[in-house]
């Protein structure tokens, strides 16, 4: 019985090899890049942003499709659990990525005038990777949220975008 592609992505089904060759080569290219180096770069970019302050996981939610079929324009929403009062609000949200050419995606400045801690935009994703959002609260504390996304059609490779 032929092995299905989903079980072993590195071993394409021989009967479909011709059709899948181009796609397989592309997947191999993406997988060949060392993931650990990218993760270190991501951590370094976050550390450069947060300085020596401690970042706690939680309170930040990234809302994005887990399976992205077009990396050129991926709708994304970042929400932070905050009452958004004068005494306790979100001052900034920074969004980072793991495997685009640059680690930064966007940074947003909010205030108690925002009323809600939620920002939406559309971003490019070069390949499957992790996204991390860091929220800076009015008391100076830092919170983070992360999500992994799978990208089937990458940005930055196919033509315009």
């Amino acid at each position: 019985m032929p092995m299905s592609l989903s079980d072993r992505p590195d071993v394409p089904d021989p009967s479909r090899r011709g059709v899948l060759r181009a796609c397989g080569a592309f997947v191999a290219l993406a997988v060949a890049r060392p993931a650990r180096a990218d993760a270190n770069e991501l951590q370094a970019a976050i550390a450069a942003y947060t300085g020596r302050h401690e970042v706690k996981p939680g309170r930040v939610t990234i809302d994005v499709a887990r399976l992205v079929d077009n990396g050129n324009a991926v709708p994304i929403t970042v929400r932070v659990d905050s009452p958004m009062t004068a005494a306790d609000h979100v001052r900034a949200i920074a969004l980072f990525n793991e495997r685009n050419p640059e680690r930064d995606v966007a940074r947003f400045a909010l205030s108690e005038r925002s009323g809600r801690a939620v920002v939406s935009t559309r971003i490019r994703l070069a390949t499957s990777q992790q996204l991390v959002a860091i929220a800076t609260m009015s008391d100076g504390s830092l919170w983070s949220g992360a999500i992994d996304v799978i990208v089937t059609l990458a940005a930055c490779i196919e033509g315009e975008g």
Partner: protein
Amino acid sequence: MARTLITVPQDAKRGDVVEIRVLMAHPMETGYRVGSDGKRVPRNILRRFTCRLDGEVVFAAELFPAVSANPYLAFPLRAERSGTLSFAWEGDGGFAQTETAALNVA
């Protein structure tokens, strides 16, 4: 002047949190793409967006090449008083454009 789309709800009551949506027509050229002549296409992105209500900054964003072409932003604002919202974009090559819209609070 680049085309913009700005959506400000017009039925806000005092104290409501409204969502403001803005979009500007812009290629957001990353600086990583290679053109048909084999040379890198120079970077041309919008770097900064600022929304002010009667001069007071209520939202700002710093954008990087990972933001899609025709940058879209949706952000909240607590409607406390009527006023004039200004939306300013700044980018590479000295790009600067400002649009305004009325915020009417019942």
